[in-house]
């Protein structure tokens, strides 16, 4: 009885929390649209959006309209959906691999994507048929498969998978450096930095149409497997004994994380630590049950990424920092804290 009451109580707290998170996300996106070299009042923003979506005809400065709609709003939406996708990948990988450090960046998937992009950009692989994003996409999938094969050979224990990820990262980073130093000119080298650090510049509406559906579809697929993710807490045998079709769930969820990561990296480059920081923060707030953790992680990832994008644009006047630098500034200390806590609990 007491359990039921406390659960109901938590249910209301969760609704409140969800509302707060959604409002916070809306505020972040509005700020992201308002803030920049040309400050645009929120009222102008609202009118510009309304002009495009509801067909209203508020009189607006054409430049303002363009900045809001073509530049900043699309950028904020891509940031939000990419953040949600990366954070979801982190939470799913952590549950499946039973390792608190698992996330796409640590597992070398982002590094693979960078190599793929560099192959197209500098070596001209794909003979023009392959775009930069296509190359990144293929690189991410290859990296995922490579780390998977390495890990299967190394015995699948959760520490080893992280080591395989580190080995994979090193390999792909070495390949990238090799290609850049032997074949790239100065301008190309600067372009490569884009992939290594992650950047939101160059994002357009076409990216929104890919990244938002990917985030939503990925989220729904993960939510569908929430109970299975819970059941993995004591390992694959325990999950199977609880009636989970372990092999099928693994194939589906690893596949989804690979596709989500590949899609994100192909648009905005390799952005680290979002998949690490956000799931842990979300777990801290809503607890370990994936029915609550997945929505919290998705919203948290979206908010964090838009926030990081804003910071990247205003922290140095007249200059835009790569967003990956900002997420790393928050992420690296979090990584260290998680390591310390993991040690203490052993």
């Amino acid at each position, binding site marked *: 009885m007491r*359990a*039921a009451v406390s*659960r109901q109580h938590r249910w209301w707290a969760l609704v409140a929390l969800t509302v707060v998170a959604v409002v916070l996300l809306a505020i972040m996106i509005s700020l992201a649209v308002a803030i920049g070299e040309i400050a645009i009042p929120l009222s102008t923003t609202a009118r510009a959006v309304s002009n495009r979506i509801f067909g209203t005809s508020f009189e607006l400065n054409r430049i303002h309209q363009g900045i809001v709609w073509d530049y900043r709003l699309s950028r904020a939406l891509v940031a939000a959906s990419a953040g949600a996708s990366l954070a979801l990948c982190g939470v799913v990988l952590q*549950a499946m691999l*039973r*390792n*608190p450090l698992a996330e796409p960046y640590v597992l070398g998937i982002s590094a693979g994507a960078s190599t793929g992009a560099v192959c197209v950009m500098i070596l001209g692989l794909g003979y023009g048929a392959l775009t930069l994003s296509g190359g990144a996409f293929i690189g991410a999938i290859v990296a995922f498969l490579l780390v998977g094969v390495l890990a299967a050979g190394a015995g699948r224990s959760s520490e080893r998978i992280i080591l395989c990820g580190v080995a994979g990262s090193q390999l792909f980073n070495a390949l990238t450096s090799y290609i850049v130093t032997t074949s790239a000119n100065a301008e190309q080298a600067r372009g490569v930095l884009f992939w290594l650090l992650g950047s939101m510049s160059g994002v357009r509406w076409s990216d929104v149409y890919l990244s938002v559906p990917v985030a939503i579809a990925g989220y729904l697929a993960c939510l*569908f497997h929430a*109970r299975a993710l*819970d*059941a993995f*807490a*004591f*390992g694959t*045998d*325990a999950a*199977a*004994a*609880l*009636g*989970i*079709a372990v092999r099928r769930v693994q194939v589906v969820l690893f596949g989804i994380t690979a596709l989500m990561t590949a899609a994100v990296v192909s648009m905005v480059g390799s952005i680290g630590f979002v998949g690490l920081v956000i799931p842990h923060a979300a*777990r801290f707030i809503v*607890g*370990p*049950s994936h029915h609550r953790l997945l929505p919290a992680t998705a919203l948290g990832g979206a908010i964090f990424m838009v926030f990081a994008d804003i910071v990247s644009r205003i922290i140095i006047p007249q200059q835009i920092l790569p967003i990956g630098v900002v997420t790393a500034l928050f992420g690296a200390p979090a990584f260290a804290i998680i390591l310390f806590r*993991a040690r203490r*609990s052993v």
Partner: protein
Amino acid sequence: MSIAVENVAYAAGKTIVVDGITLAVEQGKVLGLLGPNGSGKSSLLRLICRLRKVDSGIIRLAEQDIAAIPRANLARRIAFVEQQATTDTQLTVRDVVQLGRTPHRGLLSPWGVDDDLAVEDALARVDMAHRADQFWHTLSGGERQRVHVARALAQTPSELLLDEPTNHLDIQHQLEILSLVTRLGVTSIIALHDLNLAAMFCDSLAVLQNGKVVAAGAPQEVLTEDLIARVFGVRAHIERSAVHGRYNIQYTMG
């Protein structure tokens, strides 16, 4: 027969781990699985709940080949307590026991009153109800073991497989867990190392050695001084206990 194992063999790589085992447990009875380290007890239990596939032979659950039972249906029938299972996730005792309800819940069916009852009942049975909100990683070894048993009970199984459930338990809780299991009326197979506990609580025993059954039957038939010398390599003296009437084994050195 509730559980019937027929001529089952299993190899891990090139190592033959289970080598043609046949045994059976009647509805509601408790079978004790004995044998030295590495004799194949855990492996056999894993085969029975289909965590591994048999290389040859058949395992039946109420006359039905388990290979033909869907995974989720199987989990609604058989609960398994592993020898060692732990987690880094910050779960409370109640979270862990709630996992036992996983096979009983449909995709869209919300957590129900039945689920709550099963969880609270299981917690009370292993004497952990007052610790329900404590974090798993702060529990002692024996408390963890009891929570695992509660998780299995919350699964409301008709067959229960326990791999050394008394490991880490103090003597009071060893006796409590075993008498709890034997009073449940659920068909159970328990891997045990303590021959005296096996003699006290099990309806029948099977002794494994190198993946083979070397003796099976009622405890008094199986546990002979000769067998203990042969399988475990220790000398023993066996007599009927004046206290509980069951067999009692004393070991002698040298």
